[in-house]
Protein backbone atom coordinates (compact mmCIF):
# COMPACT_ATOMS: atom_id res chain seq x y z
CA UNK A 1 0.00 0.00 0.00
CA UNK A 2 1.39 3.41 -0.94
CA UNK A 3 2.90 5.36 1.95
CA UNK A 4 5.19 8.38 2.00
CA UNK A 5 7.83 6.21 3.63
CA UNK A 6 7.97 3.69 0.78
CA UNK A 7 8.36 6.35 -1.92
CA UNK A 8 10.97 8.33 0.04
CA UNK A 9 13.05 5.25 0.81
CA UNK A 10 12.72 4.04 -2.77
CA UNK A 11 13.72 7.42 -4.16
CA UNK A 12 16.77 7.82 -1.90
CA UNK A 13 17.98 4.26 -2.53
CA UNK A 14 17.55 4.67 -6.29
CA UNK A 15 19.42 7.96 -6.15
CA UNK A 16 22.36 6.37 -4.32
CA UNK A 17 22.42 3.38 -6.68
CA UNK A 18 22.31 5.61 -9.77
CA UNK A 19 25.11 7.88 -8.55
CA UNK A 20 27.25 4.93 -7.47
CA UNK A 21 26.96 3.34 -10.91
CA UNK A 22 27.72 6.65 -12.59
CA UNK A 23 30.84 7.30 -10.55
CA UNK A 24 32.04 3.71 -10.84
CA UNK A 25 32.27 4.32 -14.59
CA UNK A 26 33.63 7.86 -14.34
CA UNK A 27 36.55 6.79 -12.13
CA UNK A 28 37.11 3.69 -14.33
CA UNK A 29 36.78 1.30 -11.42
CA UNK A 30 37.89 -2.30 -12.11
CA UNK A 31 35.08 -4.69 -13.13
CA UNK A 32 32.84 -1.68 -13.63
CA UNK A 33 30.60 -3.52 -16.11
CA UNK A 34 29.75 -6.16 -13.54
CA UNK A 35 29.27 -3.50 -10.86
CA UNK A 36 26.87 -1.37 -12.90
CA UNK A 37 24.85 -4.40 -13.99
CA UNK A 38 24.46 -5.53 -10.40
CA UNK A 39 23.53 -2.01 -9.30
CA UNK A 40 20.92 -1.87 -12.07
CA UNK A 41 19.34 -5.14 -10.92
CA UNK A 42 19.30 -3.93 -7.31
CA UNK A 43 17.66 -0.67 -8.33
CA UNK A 44 15.12 -2.67 -10.34
CA UNK A 45 14.14 -4.60 -7.22
CA UNK A 46 14.11 -1.41 -5.11
CA UNK A 47 11.72 0.29 -7.53
CA UNK A 48 9.56 -2.82 -7.93
CA UNK A 49 9.14 -3.03 -4.16
CA UNK A 50 9.00 0.64 -3.10
CA UNK A 51 7.34 2.26 -6.14
CA UNK A 52 5.27 -0.56 -7.60
CA UNK A 53 4.55 -2.45 -4.37
CA UNK A 54 5.05 -5.83 -6.08
CA UNK A 55 4.11 -8.78 -3.91
CA UNK A 56 2.35 -6.53 -1.41
CA UNK A 57 -1.17 -6.79 -2.79
CA UNK A 58 -3.99 -8.21 -0.71
CA UNK A 59 -4.82 -11.82 -1.60
CA UNK A 60 -2.83 -14.06 -3.97
CA UNK A 61 0.27 -12.38 -5.44
CA UNK A 62 -0.81 -12.52 -9.09
CA UNK A 63 1.33 -9.48 -9.90
CA UNK A 64 4.42 -11.24 -8.61
CA UNK A 65 3.57 -14.47 -10.44
CA UNK A 66 3.10 -12.74 -13.79
CA UNK A 67 6.28 -10.73 -13.23
CA UNK A 68 8.36 -13.85 -12.58
CA UNK A 69 6.91 -15.60 -15.64
CA UNK A 70 7.81 -12.63 -17.82
CA UNK A 71 11.31 -12.34 -16.34
CA UNK A 72 11.91 -16.00 -17.18
CA UNK A 73 10.91 -15.46 -20.80
CA UNK A 74 12.98 -12.26 -20.97
CA UNK A 75 16.02 -14.15 -19.67
CA UNK A 76 15.64 -16.83 -22.34
CA UNK A 77 15.19 -14.25 -25.11
CA UNK A 78 18.20 -12.15 -24.11
CA UNK A 79 20.64 -14.90 -23.17
CA UNK A 80 19.52 -17.00 -26.15
CA UNK A 81 19.97 -14.13 -28.62
CA UNK A 82 23.41 -13.23 -27.32
CA UNK A 83 24.54 -16.87 -27.35
CA UNK A 84 23.26 -17.62 -30.84
CA UNK A 85 24.57 -14.41 -32.41
CA UNK A 86 27.99 -14.86 -30.80
CA UNK A 87 28.08 -18.41 -32.11
CA UNK A 88 27.21 -17.24 -35.62
CA UNK A 89 29.87 -14.54 -35.49
CA UNK A 90 32.46 -17.07 -34.44
CA UNK A 91 31.47 -19.71 -36.98
CA UNK A 92 30.94 -17.62 -40.06
CA UNK A 93 33.79 -15.59 -41.57
CA UNK A 94 33.05 -13.21 -44.49
CA UNK A 95 34.20 -15.70 -47.16
CA UNK A 96 31.98 -18.38 -45.67
CA UNK A 97 29.09 -15.88 -45.69
CA UNK A 98 29.56 -15.27 -49.42
CA UNK A 99 29.73 -19.00 -50.14
CA UNK A 100 26.62 -19.63 -48.05
CA UNK A 101 24.66 -16.86 -49.75
CA UNK A 102 25.68 -17.97 -53.24
CA UNK A 103 24.71 -21.54 -52.49
CA UNK A 104 21.32 -20.74 -51.01
CA UNK A 105 20.42 -18.26 -53.78
CA UNK A 106 21.55 -20.75 -56.41
CA UNK A 107 24.11 -18.34 -57.83
CA UNK A 108 27.01 -19.99 -59.60
CA UNK A 109 30.21 -18.46 -60.94
Amino acid at each position, binding site marked *: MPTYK*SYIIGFLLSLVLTLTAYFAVVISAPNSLLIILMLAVIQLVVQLVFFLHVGQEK*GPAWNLAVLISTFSIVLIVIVGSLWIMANLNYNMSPQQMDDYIMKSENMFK
Partner: protein
Amino acid sequence: MENSLKHHQQTTDKHILGFWVYLMTDLLMFAVLFATYAVLRNNTFGGPSARDLLSLPFVLAETLILLTSSFTCGLAIIAAHSKNKIQVMGWFSITFLLGASFLTMELTEFHRLIAEGHGPQASAFLSSFFTLVGTHGLHIAIGLLWILVSLIMVWKRGLTENLINKLTRLAYFWHFLDLVWIFIFTIVYLNAHV
Protein backbone atom coordinates in the same frame (compact mmCIF):
# COMPACT_ATOMS: atom_id res chain seq x y z
CA MET B 1 -24.59 -3.93 -0.20
CA GLU B 2 -21.50 -5.75 1.06
CA ASN B 3 -21.55 -8.00 -2.01
CA SER B 4 -21.59 -4.96 -4.26
CA LEU B 5 -18.56 -3.42 -2.47
CA LYS B 6 -16.64 -6.69 -2.72
CA HIS B 7 -17.53 -6.99 -6.40
CA HIS B 8 -16.37 -3.41 -6.94
CA GLN B 9 -13.02 -4.12 -5.29
CA GLN B 10 -12.63 -7.29 -7.36
CA THR B 11 -13.26 -5.34 -10.55
CA THR B 12 -10.64 -2.77 -9.52
CA ASP B 13 -8.14 -5.52 -8.75
CA LYS B 14 -8.85 -7.14 -12.13
CA HIS B 15 -8.28 -3.82 -13.90
CA ILE B 16 -4.95 -3.33 -12.15
CA LEU B 17 -3.85 -6.91 -12.84
CA GLY B 18 -4.92 -6.63 -16.48
CA PHE B 19 -2.87 -3.49 -16.91
CA TRP B 20 0.06 -5.16 -15.17
CA VAL B 21 -0.10 -8.05 -17.67
CA TYR B 22 -0.01 -5.51 -20.50
CA LEU B 23 3.10 -3.95 -18.89
CA MET B 24 4.69 -7.40 -18.89
CA THR B 25 4.16 -7.71 -22.64
CA ASP B 26 5.69 -4.26 -23.03
CA LEU B 27 8.64 -5.47 -20.96
CA LEU B 28 9.08 -8.37 -23.37
CA MET B 29 9.15 -5.98 -26.32
CA PHE B 30 11.83 -3.89 -24.64
CA ALA B 31 13.79 -7.05 -23.84
CA VAL B 32 13.91 -7.87 -27.55
CA LEU B 33 15.10 -4.33 -28.34
CA PHE B 34 17.77 -4.67 -25.64
CA ALA B 35 18.93 -8.01 -27.05
CA THR B 36 19.16 -6.43 -30.50
CA TYR B 37 21.17 -3.52 -29.16
CA ALA B 38 23.49 -5.86 -27.25
CA VAL B 39 24.17 -7.87 -30.41
CA LEU B 40 24.67 -4.87 -32.69
CA ARG B 41 26.30 -2.33 -30.37
CA ASN B 42 29.79 -2.80 -31.87
CA ASN B 43 28.66 -2.85 -35.51
CA THR B 44 29.54 0.74 -36.25
CA PHE B 45 30.31 0.24 -39.96
CA GLY B 46 33.62 2.04 -39.46
CA GLY B 47 31.86 5.04 -37.98
CA PRO B 48 31.85 6.39 -34.42
CA SER B 49 30.94 4.14 -31.51
CA ALA B 50 28.73 4.71 -28.48
CA ARG B 51 31.78 5.89 -26.57
CA ASP B 52 32.41 8.59 -29.17
CA LEU B 53 28.82 9.81 -29.42
CA LEU B 54 27.18 9.57 -26.00
CA SER B 55 27.79 12.05 -23.18
CA LEU B 56 27.74 10.83 -19.57
CA PRO B 57 26.94 14.05 -17.68
CA PHE B 58 24.02 14.69 -20.02
CA VAL B 59 22.49 11.27 -19.45
CA LEU B 60 23.00 11.55 -15.69
CA ALA B 61 20.88 14.70 -15.71
CA GLU B 62 18.19 12.93 -17.78
CA THR B 63 18.25 9.94 -15.43
CA LEU B 64 17.90 12.02 -12.26
CA ILE B 65 15.05 14.01 -13.81
CA LEU B 66 13.14 10.87 -14.76
CA LEU B 67 13.78 9.25 -11.37
CA THR B 68 12.44 12.33 -9.60
CA SER B 69 9.36 12.31 -11.84
CA SER B 70 8.71 8.69 -10.81
CA PHE B 71 8.92 9.83 -7.18
CA THR B 72 6.54 12.77 -7.65
CA CYS B 73 4.15 10.42 -9.46
CA GLY B 74 4.12 8.25 -6.32
CA LEU B 75 3.34 11.30 -4.20
CA ALA B 76 0.43 12.09 -6.53
CA ILE B 77 -1.03 8.65 -5.90
CA ILE B 78 -0.79 9.06 -2.13
CA ALA B 79 -2.65 12.36 -2.53
CA ALA B 80 -5.27 10.57 -4.65
CA HIS B 81 -5.92 8.00 -1.92
CA SER B 82 -6.30 10.92 0.51
CA LYS B 83 -8.80 12.45 -1.94
CA ASN B 84 -6.72 15.65 -2.06
CA LYS B 85 -7.59 17.07 -5.48
CA ILE B 86 -5.22 20.07 -5.38
CA GLN B 87 -2.23 17.96 -4.36
CA VAL B 88 -3.01 15.33 -7.03
CA MET B 89 -3.06 18.00 -9.71
CA GLY B 90 0.06 19.62 -8.26
CA TRP B 91 2.18 16.48 -8.13
CA PHE B 92 1.04 15.24 -11.53
CA SER B 93 1.85 18.67 -13.00
CA ILE B 94 5.36 18.47 -11.58
CA THR B 95 5.67 14.92 -12.91
CA PHE B 96 4.61 16.22 -16.32
CA LEU B 97 7.17 19.05 -16.27
CA LEU B 98 9.99 16.68 -15.29
CA GLY B 99 8.94 14.16 -17.93
CA ALA B 100 8.72 16.87 -20.58
CA SER B 101 12.22 18.08 -19.62
CA PHE B 102 13.51 14.54 -20.00
CA LEU B 103 11.90 14.16 -23.40
CA THR B 104 13.19 17.55 -24.57
CA MET B 105 16.73 16.61 -23.55
CA GLU B 106 16.42 13.31 -25.38
CA LEU B 107 15.09 14.95 -28.53
CA THR B 108 17.98 17.42 -28.37
CA GLU B 109 20.43 14.53 -28.26
CA PHE B 110 18.71 12.78 -31.19
CA HIS B 111 18.71 15.99 -33.19
CA ARG B 112 22.41 16.59 -32.57
CA LEU B 113 23.28 13.03 -33.61
CA ILE B 114 21.22 13.16 -36.79
CA ALA B 115 22.48 16.63 -37.72
CA GLU B 116 26.06 15.39 -37.40
CA GLY B 117 25.31 12.50 -39.78
CA HIS B 118 24.90 9.82 -37.13
CA GLY B 119 21.26 8.98 -37.75
CA PRO B 120 19.61 5.55 -37.51
CA GLN B 121 20.62 4.69 -41.09
CA ALA B 122 24.34 5.23 -40.52
CA SER B 123 25.13 1.88 -38.90
CA ALA B 124 23.60 -1.16 -37.22
CA PHE B 125 24.70 0.22 -33.86
CA LEU B 126 22.85 3.47 -34.51
CA SER B 127 19.76 1.69 -35.86
CA SER B 128 19.47 -0.35 -32.70
CA PHE B 129 20.26 2.67 -30.50
CA PHE B 130 17.57 4.86 -32.03
CA THR B 131 15.02 2.04 -31.99
CA LEU B 132 15.59 1.16 -28.34
CA VAL B 133 15.91 4.68 -26.95
CA GLY B 134 13.34 6.07 -29.38
CA THR B 135 10.73 3.49 -28.41
CA HIS B 136 11.23 4.40 -24.76
CA GLY B 137 10.89 8.08 -25.68
CA LEU B 138 7.68 7.36 -27.54
CA HIS B 139 6.29 5.67 -24.42
CA ILE B 140 7.26 8.76 -22.40
CA ALA B 141 5.45 11.00 -24.89
CA ILE B 142 2.30 8.87 -24.61
CA GLY B 143 2.63 8.95 -20.81
CA LEU B 144 2.83 12.74 -20.90
CA LEU B 145 -0.34 12.89 -22.98
CA TRP B 146 -2.02 10.53 -20.54
CA ILE B 147 -0.98 12.77 -17.61
CA LEU B 148 -2.46 15.82 -19.35
CA VAL B 149 -5.76 14.07 -20.00
CA SER B 150 -5.81 12.82 -16.40
CA LEU B 151 -5.20 16.33 -15.05
CA ILE B 152 -8.20 17.59 -17.00
CA MET B 153 -10.36 14.69 -15.77
CA VAL B 154 -9.39 15.29 -12.14
CA TRP B 155 -10.09 18.99 -12.53
CA LYS B 156 -13.48 18.50 -14.19
CA ARG B 157 -14.84 15.44 -12.38
CA GLY B 158 -13.01 15.35 -9.05
CA LEU B 159 -11.48 12.24 -7.47
CA THR B 160 -14.04 9.49 -7.93
CA GLU B 161 -13.21 5.86 -7.12
CA ASN B 162 -13.12 5.13 -10.84
CA LEU B 163 -10.72 7.97 -11.56
CA ILE B 164 -8.37 6.97 -8.73
CA ASN B 165 -8.28 3.52 -10.31
CA LYS B 166 -7.28 5.06 -13.65
CA LEU B 167 -4.62 7.23 -12.00
CA THR B 168 -3.16 4.11 -10.39
CA ARG B 169 -2.73 2.53 -13.81
CA LEU B 170 -1.09 5.72 -15.09
CA ALA B 171 1.32 5.60 -12.15
CA TYR B 172 2.18 1.96 -12.92
CA PHE B 173 2.91 2.97 -16.51
CA TRP B 174 5.12 5.86 -15.43
CA HIS B 175 7.05 3.79 -12.83
CA PHE B 176 7.52 1.08 -15.47
CA LEU B 177 9.14 3.58 -17.84
CA ASP B 178 11.65 4.58 -15.18
CA LEU B 179 12.43 0.89 -14.63
CA VAL B 180 13.21 0.43 -18.32
CA TRP B 181 15.29 3.60 -18.29
CA ILE B 182 17.53 2.18 -15.51
CA PHE B 183 18.61 -0.45 -18.01
CA ILE B 184 18.96 1.93 -20.93
CA PHE B 185 21.12 4.15 -18.71
CA THR B 186 23.25 1.16 -17.69
CA ILE B 187 23.46 -0.95 -20.86
CA VAL B 188 23.59 1.83 -23.46
CA TYR B 189 25.19 4.87 -21.84
CA LEU B 190 27.30 3.65 -18.91
CA ASN B 191 28.37 0.56 -20.85
CA ALA B 192 29.68 2.80 -23.63
CA HIS B 193 32.21 4.35 -21.26
CA VAL B 194 33.15 1.28 -19.25
